[in-house]
């Protein structure tokens, strides 16, 4: 488009251009609406629990009865089958084997899954960028040590390492001097997932840093007597921003998926705390009689991760100067 190129010449920044491309992407807009909707619903979990369902995420009702369409039914039947979706304010999406309201747990669980996903991503990005900067800028023995450390973490399948650390930490929690995190805290899975994902971010960024340090503007800064730390932060880091922006949604999506897997193996969010992963793993045990216990959290999980992935891909295309050739519109 000639018009756009003209405006580039008159000083429109790359992010402004990217945003413009992003706004034209219908799929990305739909995904954004879905994602914001899910986050908003999850944030409103306490309101729904208090004003609509009148029960909390940990409240058991297995011996109670509920009136559905004029009939009185057990929340959990005598042979242990929980009630399915009632489409009423009580047990909108059914109950689990403890007679807990699935809809309430879905919202609270979503909140926990999102907290774990986002905190894990924050930990990963912070640590990985720092490691990549030091390893890629200084090279030499610092690079050798850091790169071997990344290789070690990377050689384990993420889920295997996550389960090993998760089992170990969920038993004892963490106590490092003043820092104490109990074993059932949400931050333990977040920390583990954040740690396990570090090499997947640090490795590509390190490569980029190695390329950037040879550029003329870094040489220029060096001749101006700028120190290593200063060059890393003011010369190299800003040039990594588009890579970082592209990797963030990918890592959030991966972290939420890994949380589900770890929780299924008992090494993620600890019961009775709900998360989509723990809800799915509880549901799998009853899948023959109550498939909705897997489907409800499963669909919520897939929808959330899918919307993040669509957004992530759209952001990547929008930031890529060759995006026009990719989507050809």
């Amino acid at each position, binding site marked *: 488009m000639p018009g756009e190129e003209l405006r580039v010449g008159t000083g429109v920044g790359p992010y402004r251009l990217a945003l413009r491309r992003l706004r034209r992407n219908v799929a990305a807009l739909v995904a954004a609406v879905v994602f914001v909707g899910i986050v908003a619903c999850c944030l409103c979990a306490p309101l729904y629990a208090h004003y609509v369902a009148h029960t909390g995420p940990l409240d058991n009702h297995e011996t109670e009865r509920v009136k559905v369409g004029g009939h009185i039914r057990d929340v959990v039947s005598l042979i242990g089958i929980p009630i399915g979706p009632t489409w009423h304010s009580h047990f909108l999406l059914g109950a689990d084997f403890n007679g807990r309201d699935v809809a309430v747990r879905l919202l609270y669980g979503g909140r926990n899954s999102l907290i774990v996903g986002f905190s894990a991503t924050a930990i990963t990005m912070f640590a990985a960028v720092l490691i990549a900067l030091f390893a890629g800028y200084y090279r030499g023995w610092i690079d050798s040590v850091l790169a071997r450390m990344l290789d070690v973490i990377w050689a384990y399948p993420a889920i295997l390492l996550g389960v090993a650390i998760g089992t170990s930490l969920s038993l004892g929690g963490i106590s490092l001097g003043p820092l104490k995190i109990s074993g059932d805290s949400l931050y333990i899975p977040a920390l583990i997932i954040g740690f396990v994902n570090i090499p997947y971010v640090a490795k590509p960024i390190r490569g980029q840093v190695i390329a950037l340090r040879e550029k003329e503007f870094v040489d220029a800064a060096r001749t101006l007597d700028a120190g290593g730390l200063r060059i890393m932060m003011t010369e190299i880091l800003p040039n990594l921003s588009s890579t970082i922006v592209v990797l963030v949604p990918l890592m959030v999506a991966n972290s939420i998926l890994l949380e589900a897997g770890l929780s299924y193996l008992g090494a993620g969010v600890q019961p009775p705390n709900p998360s989509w992963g723990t809800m*799915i793993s509880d549901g799998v045990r009853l899948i023959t009689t109550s498939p909705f216990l897997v489907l409800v959290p499963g669909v919520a999980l897939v929808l959330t991760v899918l919307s993040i992935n669509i957004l992530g891909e759209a952001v990547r295309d929008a930031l890529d100067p060759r995006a026009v050739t990719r989507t050809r519109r």
Partner: protein
Amino acid sequence: MTRFIVRRMAQTVIVLVLISIFTFLIFQVIPNGDPAARLAGRTASPDQIRAIARSWGFDQPIYVQYLRTMQKIFSGSVVSYSQQINVVDQIRRGLPATVSLAVGAGVIWLLFGIVVGLLSALRPGRVLDRVLGFLALTAISTPAFVLGAVLLYVFAYRTSILPTGEYVPLTDDPWQWFRHLVLPWISLSLAFIGFYSRVLRGNVLDAKHEEYVRMARAKGLSGRRVMVRHVLRNSLIPIVSLWGLDFAGVIGGGAILIESIFDLRGVGQYAAESISTLDVPPIMVIVMYTGVLVVVVAALVDILYAYLDPRISLNT
């Protein structure tokens, strides 16, 4: 070239030693995980616990315990804490199921990943590309074990078209072997297919704008010939190396979730069970074994790359 290979192998050995130390340490930080107390059972007296600790060597310093465990691992005589069964035998027992899962799924995901990726790259931005792209992202966004659970419900519990799980050896009954593995293969493959197709699509579209492709066109080669000989060849190399690593991960027990949900009793499920009982020796061996596979394959991939692409410097 030889120097590069030797260097790469030396790095591999260092990483493996670090992996073994790291794995051992993870299980040393468990505060109330005294293995002697667990071995002794609930009614044991302190004396009995002490005796067990002495006979297993738990009273020794950590580095002695580590070296002893490593010695046992390499002589193949390592036994598990909880059941005192030879760990290497157990892994060997799980290997046929894990290898069957990995080989079948690996072939499926490589084949379909390439086909779907090429179909999307053919006419980027058109309807077929969009539909396949959406399906690929959906597959990537679905946890394999959720898919596995839903497939189990539909095809095994609800309709009993397929069995509900467990592994039947190929040598016992090839048809039953196949029937028992169809669902695990599909559940494991879908996300990989989605991911590989996206990577391949990106590679092909990037390669189309490379100078050597423009050069080939300028020489007057036909579109099809440029596509097959230049674009495809260069786009497929990263896919195959990616496949090597993922395949090694699955063979190494990385498909813990799929193995557990379909009760295949493979290496991954053995790892999951050992972790839940805090049984250190099997986890050490499995992690070492996985680490060896992944790190060796990664080194092979690097060497292959250096061999195929002379632009890669052999000094780094």
